[in-house]
């Protein structure tokens, strides 16, 4: 299906297209219906406390920020540049080394100018979170350039109900 192809391109864009995500080992694994799923692969270079091997909180911040932005693109129907207005993160417990950290983000409201997103970081169970976040994004910001480069491929609009996803 063409939609699936667009979606897989967008998923790749959120991983390979963002240098900081590549550097940290952050991957987008799923996108659709105003939601995104990301994973942060455990790596010794992400350690914040060398005594315990615990991942630095900053890596979790990058994971949640990226997942939240992607959820906005999964929620809007046409390509518009976005900018984070604010991001609040609650750190509930330390990530356990050497486990990967997953993130799920949900863009639960889009207005003309602003999108609102909640996200959660966890190992296996999203009801046992490592961190939760709330973020707002400005929609349709100026790029600040006279001749902006071509925007990347537009993300797919919110999916029509898909019986496969419901299973």
């Amino acid at each position: 299906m063409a939609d699936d192809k667009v979606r897989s391109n967008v998923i790749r864009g959120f991983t390979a297209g963002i240098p900081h995500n590549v550097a940290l080992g952050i991957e987008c694994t799923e996108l659709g219906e105003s939601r995104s799923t990301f994973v942060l692969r455990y790596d010794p270079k992400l350690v914040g406390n060398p005594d315990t091997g615990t991942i630095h909180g900053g890596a979790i911040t990058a994971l949640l920020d990226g997942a939240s932005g992607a959820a906005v693109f999964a929620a809007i129907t046409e390509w518009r540049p976005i900018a984070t207005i604010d991001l609040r993160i609650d750190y509930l417990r330390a990530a356990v080394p050497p486990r990967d950290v997953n993130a799920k983000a949900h863009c639960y409201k889009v207005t003309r100018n602003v999108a609102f997103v909640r996200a959660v970081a966890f190992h296996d169970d999203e009801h046992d979170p490592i961190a939760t976040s709330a973020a707002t994004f400005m929609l349709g910001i100026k790029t600040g350039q006279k001749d902006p480069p071509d925007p990347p491929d537009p993300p797919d609009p919110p999916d029509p109900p898909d019986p496969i996803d419901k299973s």
Partner: protein
Amino acid sequence: MTLLERLAEAKRTNNLGAMIQAIPYANLLGLEATIVESGELVTTMKFSQHLIGNAQLPAIHGGSIGALLESAAVFELLWRAETIVLPKTITLTVDYLRSAGPRDVHATSVISRRGRRIANVRIEAWQTDRAQPITTAHAIFLVMRD
């Protein structure tokens, strides 16, 4: 050497660099901390391509700036504290004011209050002009021993 032993050493020698070098993630981000003439602690994230979050603008990833802000606050707490406990972040709230261009980012912190259990810290980050901050933030830490 543990991180806290490194910190004690850093305080003796008035050089935070040795402690920061022991933190892998701080190295990945390219963090450096200096005590400037006014006595302020300035944490700098040296620019490199892998900090980019938006290749079109280009702009530094909001997540790496969040990590800089959190680190700057932790360094401030460790540097100013009499008794040494590793602060644990409870919340971090970041206001993104301007996009961060492909240049170094600097951050300073002010400890609003350091209580027995909780410390409140305000952090500000800028690039070329300190009067034009790119982000302001506040963070709350647990600062008691386990």
